[in-house]
């Protein structure tokens, strides 16, 4: 495997890329090369589009019950290969093994929900809309869809989309993260084994050229994207101009509010998971801790004490809580933001830079838990997504102040409140403009039957990934009005 140039999976076959450009896939715990991702050319991407287009009609006319049996087989294959799959994700991403297991649980859940298509794709009808005239709605597939997936959840994020797309009768192209592609390569090996008809699902590695080709092709119908808001907005515009369906899940800055009546003993472990889990590289990660009123001092002390106990190291070592950042560039970016926090006057009360790890991990991309106190809403660390294990703490007077700070931020992916009071929780859920709200839950990650929501700059589009939203995204409703003479 080491240094191997990965292949694309097109029209039911593994094919070598003709491209000479590659990106290194690095194990971020030890800094070693795992593989190389080819930057596929437009010609290669068009071949995948052609294969998917060619496969569409036959697949679309295959009964849904037959289509989903492939997904049942795939689900079983995921369970049978569960440990290996989780280990691959940890190897290329760095997240601890429990996090990879959790990611695969949700991946499997999405495949399971997609097997409900015979129920989820049902249309509806109504007799006698006028005398002797009936009317019905049919939910039909559209053609070739694709996703552009991120590095932070290389298994789960594609599963928000593609199982629903093919279950509803569309064909599909996955463009995995070029930084963490091995997870999807392994999944496609399993897909190959279960024998889906050729062209129904395809894997194309690459970068900007591949994505632009997918968007500009007249033969693709729509795109699902998860990544930065900057790139997401650009692609959203391009998709709009090209007349595509589109769902763009962008960046985030998730505010976590802790009320004076919160149960600290239960709250602090939740906060640690929220801010530091996946080494802070979650779009649902806690971004700023808003300590309301007189809980501020005790909360700060408790979270500092807990964060100090976090063990940093290789994600495959089960004694470790926190793995490396997924890339050197990601690590450098977080270090730069930490510097900015110091320069702008926040007080660094726990410094994760130069964190101690085992000698064999000396080339890894590690940053330990980092906590800033005396943060103000104007500071960069309070406004921008950090995507690293950093906890900025802001002391606020009351709930209204907290909500004002949340609403001043352009993002709206998630927000959580910790409180023992139902009325306060309801007020938060009612007023806060964020797509995923947690009430005493630090990582408000919806299960597969619910949409993975998002608002404001965190989401562009109408329909989200997962569940019924995904089914609606991948189908269009045709109305049939009937009268028989």
């Amino acid at each position, binding site marked *: 495997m080491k240094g191997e140039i990965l292949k694309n999976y097109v029209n039911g076959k593994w094919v070598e890329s003709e491209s000479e450009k590659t990106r290194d896939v690095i194990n971020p715990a030890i800094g070693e090369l795992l593989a190389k991702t080819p930057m596929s050319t437009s010609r290669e991407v068009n071949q995948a589009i052609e294969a998917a287009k060619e496969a569409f009609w036959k697949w679309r006319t295959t009964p849904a019950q037959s289509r989903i049996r492939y997904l049942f087989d795939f689900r079983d294959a995921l369970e049978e290969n569960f440990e290996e799959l989780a280990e691959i994700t940890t190897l290329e991403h760095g997240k601890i093994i*429990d996090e990879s297991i959790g990611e695969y649980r949700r991946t499997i859940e999405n495949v399971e929900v997609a097997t409900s298509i015979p129920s989820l794709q049902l249309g509806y009808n109504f007799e006698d809309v006028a005398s002797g005239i009936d009317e019905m709605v049919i939910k039909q597939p559209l053609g070739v869809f694709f996703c552009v997936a991120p590095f932070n959840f290389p298994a789960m994020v594609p599963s928000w989309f593609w199982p629903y797309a093919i279950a509803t009768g569309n064909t599909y192209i996955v463009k995995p993260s070029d930084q963490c592609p091995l997870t999807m390569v392994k999944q496609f090996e399993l897909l190959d084994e279960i024998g889906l008809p050729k062209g129904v699902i395809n894997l194309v590695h690459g970068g900007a050229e591949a994505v632009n080709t997918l968007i500009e092709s007249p033969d693709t119908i729509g795109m699902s994207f998860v990544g930065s808001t900057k790139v997401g907005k650009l692609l959203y515009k391009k998709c709009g101009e090209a007349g595509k369906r589109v769902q763009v899940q962008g960046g985030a800055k998730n505010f976590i509010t802790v009320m004076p009546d919160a149960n600290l003993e239960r709250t602090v472990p939740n906060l640690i998971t929220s801010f530091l*889990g996946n080494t802070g590289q979650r779009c649902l990660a806690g971004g700023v801790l808003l300590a309301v009123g007189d809980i501020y001092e005790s909360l700060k002390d408790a979270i500092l004490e807990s964060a100090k106990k976090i063990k940093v190291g290789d994600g495959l070592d089960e004694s470790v809580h926190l793995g490396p950042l997924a890339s050197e560039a990601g690590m450098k970016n977080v270090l730069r933001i930490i510097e900015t926090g110091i320069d702008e006057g926040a007080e660094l009360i726990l410094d994760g830079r130069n964190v101690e790890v085992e000698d064999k991990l000396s080339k890894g991309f590690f940053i330990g838990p980092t906590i800033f106190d005396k943060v103000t809403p104007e500071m960069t660390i309070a406004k921008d997504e950090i995507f690293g294990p950093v906890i900025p703490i802001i002391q606020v007077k009351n709930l209204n102040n907290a909500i004002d700070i949340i609403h001043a931020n352009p993002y709206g992916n998630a927000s959580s409140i910790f409180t023992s009071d139902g009325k306060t929780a309801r007020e938060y859920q009612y007023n806060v403009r964020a797509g995923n709200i947690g009430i005493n839950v630090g*990582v408000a990650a919806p299960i597969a039957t619910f949409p993975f929501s998002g608002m404001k700059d965190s989401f562009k589009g109408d329909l989200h990934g997962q569940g019924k939203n995904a089914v609606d995204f991948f189908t269009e409703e045709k109305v049939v009005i009937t009268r028989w003479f």
Partner: protein
Amino acid sequence: MVLKGELMSLVTLGAVLKFAVKIEDQAKEFYENNIDCEDFKNLLPQYEKRIKKLIRVRRENTTEMILEPIKDFSPNLYQIAQQIEENVKSFSLSIIGKKIERTIGDFYSEAAKKIAFLSEVATLFDDISADHYKNSDTIK
């Protein structure tokens, strides 16, 4: 899965469940090696079932929402292979069996407290703990 590193402390749900499977396996191996003892033979079917259950729980309950760190839970008191090695020359098989069952029961009892935030798994651990204590009483 081959995991690197020593289990210095059981810090995650996955680590607790993996350790549980490990000590169940070690006890099972001891009973299999001494299958002439009728009490041990009778215990084996429940071990098979329990190990499968634990592997399933590890996969099912390690979810993104609740990967909370676990504090101050050392596996040192519950090292079954080590306990067998230390006791095998001094005690009868049945006494070793009783000790094993009590130790594993103690492990689950403590584990249930440590993962109280996952009530479903905590209840399962309490039940398994009770089973092991009962086994300890049944070995003659």
